[in-house]
């Protein structure tokens, strides 16, 4: 019984002690509260004794930063990293080339160009091991004692994982190429392509895009056929490395560019250069119809300069403007096409005018042009657009001629080849992916039963495959082949 009571007494006593304690804390909250209201107040806040002055830190663990000008690409940090979150590529200029890679702040002559210095902070585990071996002290964690080199940055959250990959190398492509880094550039392009393809399809279905090649060609052809041999003189000025950017396959583009540069250094004229490029490509076994057609176009393109003299009115861009909708199938001028106009107001005016003309039924293009000029919104881009449509209207009037031209420039696209007979189902076996093949064949049979023409069937195939997200480059090429009937 006494123990029973003692228990109760002891219990009550201990309760009172505890309650006194908590009550003390409740009363002296002003001194005792230890919370740091993070967004409003950040450490170091010495008065509350959370965090100290930066000078009192040995170092601080935060984002890694690289002073790329000091980096001599000694790869020490990459080797030290336990999780391989640092990737360094460097290019050693060839012997005898007088490229200066610069000096570091410790007056060390840099012997290499750092073409790539990526740190994936989403993988970094902030172990700081990469900082110690660096001979130039150019990689460090920002803030703290390094605050004078780079201010603290511990809030670098991103919406995408890629955002956590920091690229520190600042060497330009030209510099790299001069240092003999074409090969590296090509590899990088391949990787980039792979990456971008991955980024592009965010689980969504790509819309059917017309081949970028077809459009300009159609507009160019008349002139190129008209004046075949007059361009070579000024062509060397015309032909630029940019021109190869139309080549979809990155590898081929790289090769082409390389060949181009080589030829250009030996300053050959355009035709020779193109020949070289073609040669290089076919050597690499990369020659496809697409590229062939591009090369053809390039050989033809120099005529742009002289075109206006021949053609009445219209300035340079008139014909050379790529006009996808028109090129793919000769469609009427539609209100949707006006969406290509950048400026909102201009677009609005244009559409109004378009609707109006639709009722009154006069020439739409002219009406829109007029409306825009009145509104003072007629800039070159819009001008081009409208011109292209005026061209389109003309084409619609004479499709046959267009076809002839199309054949005359033996370019290999699906374009108007309705007359060709329907290809065999066996032709689809070129598709590697089983599922894709099956799907394609289904669509083909369906089309065949309904007696569609080759063009329609191919269009169906494209549509169906893209629908299922199965339309990859290989399949695309095959379809092009089929379309061009060989």
């Amino acid at each position: 019984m006494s123990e029973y009571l003692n228990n109760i007494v002891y219990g009550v006593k201990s309760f009172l002690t505890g309650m006194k304690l908590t009550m003390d804390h409740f009363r002296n909250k002003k001194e005792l509260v230890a919370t740091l209201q993070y967004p409003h107040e950040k450490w170091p806040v010495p008065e509350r004794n959370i965090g100290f002055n930066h000078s009192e830190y040995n170092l601080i663990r935060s984002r890694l930063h690289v002073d790329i000008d000091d980096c001599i690409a000694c790869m020490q940090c990459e080797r030290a990293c336990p999780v391989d979150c640092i990737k360094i590529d460097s290019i050693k200029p060839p012997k005898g080339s007088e490229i200066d890679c610069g000096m570091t702040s410790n007056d060390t002559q840099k012997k290499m160009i750092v073409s790539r210095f990526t740190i994936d902070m989403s993988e970094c585990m902030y172990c700081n091991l990469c900082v110690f071996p660096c001979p130039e002290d150019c990689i460090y964690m920002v803030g703290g004692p390094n605050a004078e080199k780079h201010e603290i940055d511990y809030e670098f959250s991103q919406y995408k994982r890629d955002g956590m990959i920091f690229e520190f190398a600042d060497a330009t492509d030209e510099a790299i190429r001069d240092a003999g880094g074409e090969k590296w550039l090509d590899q990088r392009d391949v990787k980039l392509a792979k990456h971008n393809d991955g980024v592009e399809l965010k689980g969504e279905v790509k819309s059917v895009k017309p081949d970028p090649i077809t459009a300009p060609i159609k507009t160019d052809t008349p002139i190129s056929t008209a004046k075949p041999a007059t361009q070579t003189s000024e062509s060397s000025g015309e032909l630029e490395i940019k021109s190869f950017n139309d080549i979809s396959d990155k590898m081929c583009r790289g090769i082409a560019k390389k060949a181009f540069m080589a030829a250009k250094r030996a300053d050959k004229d355009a035709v020779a250069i193109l020949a070289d490029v073609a040669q290089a490509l076919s050597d690499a076994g990369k020659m496809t119809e697409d590229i062939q057609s591009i090369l053809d176009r390039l050989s033809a393109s120099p005529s742009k300069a002289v075109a206006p003299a021949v053609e009445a009115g219209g300035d340079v861009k008139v014909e050379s403007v790529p006009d996808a909708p028109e090129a793919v199938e000769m469609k009427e001028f539609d209100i949707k096409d006006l969406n290509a106009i950048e400026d909102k107001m201009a677009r609005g005016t244009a559409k109004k005018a378009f609707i109006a003309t639709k009722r009154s039924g006069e020439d739409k293009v002219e009406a829109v042009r007029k409306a825009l000029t009145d509104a003072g919104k007629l800039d070159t881009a819009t001008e081009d657009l409208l011109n292209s449509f005026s061209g389109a209207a003309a084409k619609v009037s004479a499709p046959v001629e267009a076809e002839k031209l199309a054949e005359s420039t033996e370019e290999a696209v699906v374009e108007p080849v309705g007359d060709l007979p329907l290809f065999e189902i066996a032709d689809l076996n070129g598709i590697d992916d089983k599922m894709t093949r099956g799907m394609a064949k289904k669509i083909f049979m369906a089309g065949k039963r309904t007696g569609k023409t080759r063009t329609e069937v191919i269009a169906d195939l494209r549509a169906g495959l893209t629908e299922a997200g199965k339309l990859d480059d290989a399949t695309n090429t095959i379809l092009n082949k089929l379309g061009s009937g060989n």
Partner: protein
Amino acid sequence: MTFDEIVALLDTKASGKTSVIEGKTVISVSPENWSEISAILKNESKLNFDYLMCISAYDKGDNKVYGAAYNFYSTVNNHYLEVRVEIEDGISIPSVVELWKAADWHEREAYDMMGLKFEGHPDLKRILLSDDWEGYPLRKNYKEPDYYHGLPVPKDKSYWD
């Protein structure tokens, strides 16, 4: 007791059943003698190894011989002993769970990671990995699976290379 005294005492108790790995203070025991030796280590009053610190399974690198290193300590006499039992793949080691309960989970881990079999263990099943895991990860010849339950196992970092 020093290592030599322990070895001497073991020789008197069970002569020829233990051997000293030259250059090391390690005793090597063959699996068939292990149960007897372990009983001596535990029960012999002068040795009295009552504390089994660790069982480390190891792989010699040739895909044949695997071993288990037992580290003993005596809280009474404050001395150590390391015993190694090496086996060819497939042969099982007598379990010491009856003597040291600590061996229970250590043996399970050795089985889980290195695929050593311990006969006489109450339930020898995987402890760290899931029960449907294939292979023994810590073996040198272990190949990471490409898929686990249909999920691809990321091997390279091509997503950002």
